[in-house]
């Protein structure tokens, strides 16, 4: 939060003018969509008409109107607002909406300038939007800070919570489908900026405190709804396979990252060769797949193949973990990295000349047939509810099941005796050992368990990608997995899913900076570690570990824990 060098008294006096500036700025942003933003109809999604806003401009309108609302509501006065004044942080939300609007307008200007070749192609509309955003932001910064929103402590009726959860998840599905349908980088980027701005406004307003209580109270409903939402995602694609391919890849990536999350997030072991376990599963499944290039002439049913693949990966995990888990954590990072290289080189060398022919060397095993799972053939498009879905949708659904299994394992382990042992090891291994935690066995369990899950994901991946090549399992892929865990938030489920989605979808959609992808990726890792090492979604305990000397944060976490405790153990009234 930016602090202006103005005393509180002056802020109080400036409040009305600031509010009016904010309202005028937001109104300008809202009004700007009636005027063309771009001269060139090809830039973004055709913003060249007057009085006929494009979809993206309409999304912008939502943000502007939210800002307008947040600026205007407190004008009603504390008395008339009553409870509402203290429930939500109106000023903070207004400030965020204004700032977000300005940033989105800037992104739009940049995108039009790049796509249409020069800023001459911008029309007044987009500049009005920018000016409005800056004016509103100036007003927002002059508003006094909001008190902590009280929304989180309000308990609405059950059905309201459930309706909000369902509507929210449906909105997420449609936003994701819409984002994937945007083929051009500029449009996608603009939409992403809008979505982030909207989420931030809601967060500042206080909605997330309320949501987290609602989610905790209706955990089963939430989980069920989330899976129904994810399950229905392919139906939004109208039979197109291109986006489903990305979505299925995201799920494989996320499932693997979830396995790695056990190792890194819970136990704090840095595994830099994790992709090798995925590779072991994929190669095993490929060899047993019945492809014309398969090297083992045995084609067991897929459930058995998947099990064998996972067990092979887990055995590799045991082999590599047993010697190295006794020594320090740094060694483990490098040994796993070396192991990843050994795996890749071995797969290249098992080509028939340098070793027995198992993998066809650098060419790998192509032509892996589609899955045939209990009579369900994955190559066929499905017709459900009158909507056709393509081949990748089948893999998407299968990976969804695998993902559900992995999340189930993860969350249950996290809350069990084993999970507490893991966290103890992560925080202080010596102390954990002194308390009687069998550190070696627990570390080995995490390591082999993570490998097992990766092997499982690898078995599906082999069929989904239809070919397995050693070069799919280079070190950089391991680094990407680590990055997904770190970016999203070590030790969290939602965080890692978000991190994996960002890392997989962004490069697909932002082809124009493909060259700079790795460069930005390296910078991102450094900046994340420097400024937000706990990731986008922070595990609270983890956050405290990273900010050990932050007293305020410790207090905040403690207060929150007390609030949760009170929420679940209400004091009996009338004493």
């Amino acid at each position, binding site marked *: 939060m930016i602090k202006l060098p103005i005393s509180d008294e002056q802020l109080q006096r400036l409040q009305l003018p600031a509010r009016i500036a904010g309202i005028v700025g937001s109104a300008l942003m809202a009004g700007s969509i009636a005027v063309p933003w771009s001269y060139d109809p090809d830039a973004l999604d055709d913003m060249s008409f007057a009085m006929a806003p494009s979809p993206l401009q309409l999304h912008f309108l939502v943000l502007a109107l939210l800002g307008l609302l947040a600026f205007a509501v407190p004008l009603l006065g504390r008395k008339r607002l009553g409870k509402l004044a203290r429930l939500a942080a109106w000023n903070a939300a207004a400030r965020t909406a204004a700032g977000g609007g300005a940033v989105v307008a800037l992104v739009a200007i940049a995108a039009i300038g790049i796509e249409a070749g020069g800023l001459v192609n911008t029309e007044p509309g987009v500049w009005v939007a920018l000016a409005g955003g800056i004016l509103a932001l100036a007003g927002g910064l002059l508003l006094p800070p909001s008190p902590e929103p009280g929304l989180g402590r309000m308990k609405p009726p059950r059905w309201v919570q459930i309706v909000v959860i369902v509507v929210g998840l449906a909105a997420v599905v449609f936003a994701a489908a819409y984002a994937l349908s945007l083929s051009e980088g500029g449009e996608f980027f603009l939409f992403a900026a809008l979505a982030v701005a909207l989420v931030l406004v809601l967060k500042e307003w206080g909605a997330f405190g309320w949501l987290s209580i609602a989610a905790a109270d209706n955990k089963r409903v939430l989980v069920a709804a989330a899976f129904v939402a994810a399950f229905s995602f392919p139906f939004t694609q109208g039979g197109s396979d291109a986006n489903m391919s990305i979505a299925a890849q995201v799920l494989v990536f996320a499932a693997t990252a979830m396995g790695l999350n056990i190792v*890194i997030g819970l136990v*704090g072991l*840095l595994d*830099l060769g994790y992709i090798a376990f995925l590779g072991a599963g994929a190669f095993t499944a490929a060899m047993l797949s019945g492809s014309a290039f398969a090297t083992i002439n045995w084609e067991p049913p897929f459930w058995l193949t998947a099990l064998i693949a996972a067990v092979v990966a887990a055995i590799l995990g045991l082999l*590599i973990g047993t*010697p*190295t888990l*006794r*020594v*320090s*954590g*740094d*060694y483990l*990072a*490098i*040994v796993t*990295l*070396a*192991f990843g*290289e*050994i795996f890749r*080189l*071995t797969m*290249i*060398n098992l080509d028939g000349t*340098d*070793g027995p022919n198992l993998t066809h060397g650098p060419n790998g095993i192509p032509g892996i047939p589609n899955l045939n799972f209990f009579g369900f053939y994955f190559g066929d498009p499905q017709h459900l509810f009158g909507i056709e879905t393509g081949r990748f949708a089948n893999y998407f659904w299968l990976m969804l099941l695998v993902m559900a299994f992995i999340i189930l394992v993860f969350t249950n382990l996290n809350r069990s005796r084993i999970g507490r042992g893991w966290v103890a090891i992560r925080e202080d*291994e*010596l102390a954990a050992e002194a308390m009687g935690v069998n550190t070696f066995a627990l570390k080995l369990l995490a390591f082999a368990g993570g490998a097992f899950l990766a092997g499982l994901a690898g078995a599906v991946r082999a069929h989904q990608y239809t070919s397995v090549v050693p070069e799919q399992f280079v*070190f*950089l892929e391991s*680094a990407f997995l*680590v990055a997904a865990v*770190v970016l999203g938030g070590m030790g969290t489920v939602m965080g890692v899913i978000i991190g994996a989605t960002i890392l997989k979808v962004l490069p697909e959609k932002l082809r124009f900076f493909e*060259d*700079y992808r*790795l*460069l930005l*990726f*390296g*910078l*991102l*890792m*450094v900046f*994340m*570690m*420097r400024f937000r*090492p706990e990731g986008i979604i922070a595990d609270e305990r983890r956050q405290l*570990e*990273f900010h*050990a000397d932050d007293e305020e944060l410790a207090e905040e976490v403690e207060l929150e824990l007390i609030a949760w405790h009170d929420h679940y153990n209400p004091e009996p009234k009338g004493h």
Partner: protein
Amino acid sequence: MDFFLQQLINGLSLGALYALIAVGYTVVYGIVQLINFAHGEIFMIGAFGAYAVWIVIGKPTGWDVGPSLLVLLPLMIIGGIAASVTVALLTERLAYRPLRNAPRLAPLISAIGVSVFLQEAVRLFYGTIPGFPDAKAGFPFPTVTGISGRMVEVGGVILQFSTLFTIGALIVCTVGLWYFVNRTKVGRAMIATSQDPDTARLMGINVDRVIMAAFAVGAALAAIAGVAHGLRYQTIIGDMGFMAGLKAFTAAVLGGIGNIYGALVGGVVLGVVESLSAAYLGGGSAWKDVWAFGLLILVLVFRPQGLLGAKVVDRA
């Protein structure tokens, strides 16, 4: 016998390269307990820095032995060292120092980020400087008259001059390193800091400066290794740091990480093992990297403190 000696010499010069890089890992680890994952890239930048000097002084090719060895080679080495040390100090300042009190995972992940960033930065932008070659593919390293392409035969064993240069560089650097560590103020401060940073600070040692010195020394030796690599293989490429760095780290662990002389011994042993295993073990050179990494795992099982004993072993 000749074949064995030949392989031994090859292994020694390869090992000398590893040893020069490994020192950088070990001095930094001995003081801040950080695996500087980006050190392989520092080695690569040393080679590219030397190449840049060669371009700046007008791409001389046909110089006589005298000026070539007395002017060109030292200039290239100095250029490489300047580039490496600058980049190493910058990464220390920007990416590692802010994380010095963070949990152990944070600086290591940051180091991976630095490694990827440096490799990509060189790959993408080296060629955009006017007159510089594109680093996306490999390009030939300049020939230094007097070293490149010359060889002598001693009793059936062929000695490339570039091989001799690498081994010689290792010997000179070892002596220099010994002098620096034992006879200079900064070197002794380094030893003190690695033994006990808090006490060293109480004794008036500027620990920040000592850490910078450790990064600088490691980078300088890596830059010399970069030039030696260029002369030996006659080609350099933007991603040459990854594998070399990994091997050098293996060498550092092999000798006992944190122990400077251990890194030198570990490097030489690793080079010889790699060279001999390629020559004598089944499968040939396709498997040599596998043997090298297998050796790392074996050492960790049976002698985790390394050949010469590590200063710090059990730090989680």
